[in-house]
């Protein structure tokens, strides 16, 4: 008997059952450390189609696809991998983009090993499906298509409402794209002269080529998003002015947490001491590595010390190496196990010859004639676990030592920039200056929503994007006639 559905029409026969291949995880080609540490071209090269299909064929297409729970925005991973298995790449991209507007970016920078891949059933045997690499491959596949063949989300019918989005980082971009799908007019205001937020000024070219970020922004413009660079909200316009004189019905705040922290130790203002933000901005946004072709200089140290253990520290260290440093040290208070950076970045940094100096904490910066010459550090050891469960470092008395360096980069974190909040008195902030928002992104101010690092503190690209999307939906509900 042939299967029929409720209406009596025949149901197509089920696809042949997918037989998972029992092969090991497909490696992604990358350039050797010797070669890549001398230029700013991308380190990893991405899968070929054959590799992507081979890797996809490892997926068990689980009935209970636990991987999906591991992704902060719950991408239907099983189905997009299914699309690759079936050779239907456009469909696979569409499934991805349902949840993630920037797959070529997240596929490159997500901490997959702690998220989707950690939750894959194959992770138990040590070799999860390389979900991030497949996502990257699909994202690149989509970007390589002519614009008319790309997966452009459909723009909804004009709602007559206008929304101002502050900041063009992942939170702002994701929010803007989603708002267009609901038919709202959107203007993104960006204080810098270029879009992308940390994707542009922070994460280096060799990890995330800027043309990818620009292509994604181009797609948003194609969807009708208006982008206005060189506008500092809080200076050029206040939020209140956007909502009155400028005629916006709602505002999304996605201005990130870009205020660099320093340690407050002696010598921190010597020449050659940078915040990671300044160092990376000079190199990435201002393209100082092309100086003097580009106009902005950067101090090119021969011995560089980087303080910190996160992605930012890895990026700064590897950038310094590429600018020609002979020795680059990474100075971190705890041990490698506690470092918050992605495992892949740590591995790549080590391969490129970055020297890890673990369990030491800077106490003083030495200088001569205004320029940094060294760093005095205290030897640390791990004590009892603290509130976060991590063993906290404690100082070992009398074991100070000096690291010679002519450049020192502080990559110890960032905070909320008060510029915007100062001019928006009725916006409630946390005690540390972050914007308070509920789970939908609504703030204490009517019609004003927020998401990304400015709400959570420094987090990840995918979380910022997810927050932007969630807020877009809340904004849409708020703008609906009759809604409050």
């Amino acid at each position, binding site marked *: 008997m042939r299967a029929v559905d409720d209406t009596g029409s025949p149901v197509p026969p089920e696809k042949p059952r997918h037989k998972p291949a029992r092969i090991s995880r497909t490696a992604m080609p990358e350039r050797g450390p010797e070669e890549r540490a001398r230029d700013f071209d991308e380190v990893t090269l991405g899968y070929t189609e054959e590799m992507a299909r081979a890797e996809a064929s490892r997926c068990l297409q689980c009935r209970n696809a636990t991987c999906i729970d591991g992704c902060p925005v719950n991408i239907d991973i099983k189905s997009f991998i299914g699309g690759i298995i079936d050779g239907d790449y456009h469909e696979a991209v569409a499934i991805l983009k349902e949840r993630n507007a920037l797959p070529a970016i997240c596929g490159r920078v997500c901490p997959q090993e702690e998220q989707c891949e950690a939750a894959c059933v194959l992770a138990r045997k040590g070799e999860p499906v390389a979900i991030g690499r497949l996502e990257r491959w699909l994202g690149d596949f989509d970007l390589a298509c002519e614009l008319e063949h790309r997966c452009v989300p459909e723009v909804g019918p004009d709602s007559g409402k206008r929304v101002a989005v502050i900041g063009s980082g992942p939170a702002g971009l994701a929010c803007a794209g989603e708002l267009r799908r609901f038919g709202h007019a959107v203007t993104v205001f960006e204080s810098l002269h270029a879009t992308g937020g940390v994707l542009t000024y922070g994460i280096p070219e060799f990890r995330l080529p800027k043309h990818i970020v620009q292509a994604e922004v181009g797609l948003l413009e194609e969807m009708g998003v208006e982008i206005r660079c060189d506008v500092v909200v809080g200076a050029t316009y206040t939020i209140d002015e956007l909502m009155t004189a400028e005629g916006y019905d709602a505002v999304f705040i996605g201005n990130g947490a870009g205020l660099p922290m320093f340690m407050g130790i002696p010598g921190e203002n010597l020449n050659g001491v940078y915040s990671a933000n300044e160092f990376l901005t000079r190199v990435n946004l201002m*393209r100082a590595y092309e100086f003097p072709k580009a106009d902005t200089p950067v101090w090119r140290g021969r011995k560089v010390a980087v303080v910190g253990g996160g992605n930012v520290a890895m990026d700064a260290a590897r950038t310094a190496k590429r600018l020609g440093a002979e020795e680059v040290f990474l100075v971190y208070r705890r041990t490698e196990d506690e470092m918050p950076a992605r495992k892949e970045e740590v591995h790549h940094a080590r391969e490129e010859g970055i020297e890890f100096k673990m369990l030491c904490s800077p106490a003083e910066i030495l200088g001569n004639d205004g320029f940094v010459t060294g760093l005095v550090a205290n030897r640390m050891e791990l004590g009892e676990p603290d509130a976060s469960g991590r063993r906290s470092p404690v100082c070992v008395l009398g074991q100070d030592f000096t690291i010679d360096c002519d450049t020192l980069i502080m990559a110890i974190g960032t905070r909320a920039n008060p510029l915007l909040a100062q001019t928006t008195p009725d916006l409630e902030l946390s005690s540390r200056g972050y914007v308070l928002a509920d789970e939908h992104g609504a703030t204490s101010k009517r019609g004003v929503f927020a998401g990304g690092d400015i709400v959570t503190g420094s987090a990840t690209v995918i979380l910022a994007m997810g927050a932007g999307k969630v807020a877009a939906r809340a904004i849409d509900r708020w703008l609906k006639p009759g809604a409050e």
Partner: protein
Amino acid sequence: MFRIVHTRQLSDAVFEMGVEAPAIAAKARAGQFLILRVAEGGERIPLTFSDWSAEEGWIRFIFMRVGKTTHQLSHLQVGDALTDVVGPLGVPTHTEGLGRVAVVGGGVGAAVAYPVSRAMCDAGAEVTVILGARNADLLILEDEFRALPLKELIIATDDGSAGRKDLVTAPLKELCESGAIDASMAIGPAIMMKFCAATTKPYGVPCVVSLNPIMVDGTGMCGACRVTVGGQTRFGCVDGPDFDGHLVDFEELMSRQRVYTDDERLADAEYHRECSCGP
């Protein structure tokens, strides 16, 4: 793009430029600054507003030709455009409720001293302006200052080719000594501001200075503009540019201004080789 609507050469190396920027013009206040890029690939450089018109939607700034970017700027004409102009940045100068005040403008610092003095006059202060320059040719904005309702305009040049043959600190000291001022503000090269602060200090006359550390974003994001004031690190772009001159670590400021001197010379040389316009 920001269209250039006005240019004027004020002296050999000092130029005035006006740019169409209605949103910024509507907000600009005395003492605030903008950041501009001349073209793609260009450096972001900060310049202070010298004038603006909210009604007509333009802003003006005055710059001294010192390196590559200011050279490029000096070649542009009305009808050309700047790629980027951002502002207004920084905390406006405090101009309200001042009694008798001396404003010192050294060199191109006169460009900042002018709108500040004007705002102070508007707010009812009794303003004495001391304009300093190396020689008469380098003196700028004298006519503009003369048009303000100042108590007095004192001019001092190093060689005596205009006004007194003195450093600006000499008339400033006299004003302090005779008890003729309650407050002062100094705008110019770091070394001049340092000496103005030192001059006023023994008399207990406050001296606000407008600092010009190297900047990148101008919005608090990079920390390039760090200055030490009263032993604390502050960001020049968002906490300033005005600070209490008696508390500023000027040695550090001057040292930090020189970090890229060699690189800048290189960029400038390359530029002159390419544009063959001569220094």
